[in-house]
């Protein structure tokens, strides 16, 4: 199955080049091309895609602004002429970050990354509802139902249960994909188990007395996923 993708790029030659590369790749289905982030945002409010090829610097909304406004962020490959944005891109857990002009070999590498992440995601549903985390030289089984929330701490994440917490070396993006739809990223630094939420007030929620912030971008998705009266 091909992955649906869009291109958001204001610079005409970069756009055409990327368009051609996407059209020629057997694993990609290029569904739309946008010259600005505003139009892409409107499109994404009703359409779901697997991948966004996203320019950083654009007149009006930037690529980062677009991500901030999305309720659900698919895999993102950022493209830019400046490497200075790489750190910011990392904060958004993008799949890859390419310097323009995008070279064919680098393009293929980025698509391979996308496909790999996507493959992991699609196998999750067939997996058991548990993960093993390595701590103190042992692997400890954690049932999904025991996990309260997960906090990002730099290059590590901390998984909280009622009785314990476990620090493991992985990324929020990976866990988000791995854990499936019982869990939701509500903030850049937090993934929560939806069944464990006891209270939501404005831009915070509470799980086991822990107050967890909800980002503006993630709140609509959270409200959608909860069984609201």
């Amino acid at each position: 199955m091909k992955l649906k993708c869009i291109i958001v790029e204001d610079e005409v030659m970069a756009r055409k080049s990327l368009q051609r590369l996407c059209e020629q790749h057997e694993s990609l289905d290029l569904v739309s091309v946008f010259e600005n982030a505003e139009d892409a945002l409107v499109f994404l409010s009703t359409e779901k895609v697997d991948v966004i090829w996203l320019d950083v610097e654009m007149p009006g909304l930037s690529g980062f602004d677009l991500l901030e406004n999305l309720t659900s962020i698919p895999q993102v490959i950022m493209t830019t002429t400046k490497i200075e944005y790489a750190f910011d891109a990392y904060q958004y857990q993008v799949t890859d970050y390419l310097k323009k002009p995008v070279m064919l070999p680098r393009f293929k590498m980025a698509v391979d990354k996308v496909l790999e992440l996507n493959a992991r995601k699609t196998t999750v549903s067939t997996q058991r509802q548990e993960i093993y985390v390595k701590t103190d030289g042992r692997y400890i089984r954690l049932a999904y139902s025991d996990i309260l929330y997960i906090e990002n701490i730099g290059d590590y994440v901390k998984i909280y249960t009622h009785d314990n917490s476990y620090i493991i070396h992985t990324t929020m993006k990976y866990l988000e994909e791995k854990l499936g739809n019982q869990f939701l990223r509500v903030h850049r630094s937090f993934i929560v188990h939806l069944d464990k939420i006891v209270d939501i007030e404005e831009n915070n929620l509470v799980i086991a007395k822990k107050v967890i912030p909800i980002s503006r971008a993630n709140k609509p998705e959270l409200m959608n996923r909860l069984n609201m009266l």
Partner: protein
Amino acid sequence: MFEFNAHLDADYINEIYGGDLSIVQIMFNSFLEESIPVWNEMYDKIVAKNYAEVGRLAHQIKPSFSMVGLTFLHPKIQAFETFAKSGPAQGELLTQYQQIAVDVNHAKLVIEEELKRMEDYV
């Protein structure tokens, strides 16, 4: 394998497009249709002393030069952009523009010629 004019950075072109001449043709056409008119428009902006716009336009078309193999022009356009944004004297900016314009006009002819050659080759 198609051999590009020595004026163009063939290694760079092949690295970007992986030897796909159809995409090279698209890029060359885009360069002529999109970037060259913007380059010409910059002259009017210099005359109108709208240097911020000159800098913006230079920034806009700068990557396109590399994308058609005119890698040697990229640093010149970069320097021109920086100069335009520094609030230069009109005469100095115009002189710099005209110096680069010699290269750009020649490059335009090369790109047009290469497009014809590619059409015959494909």
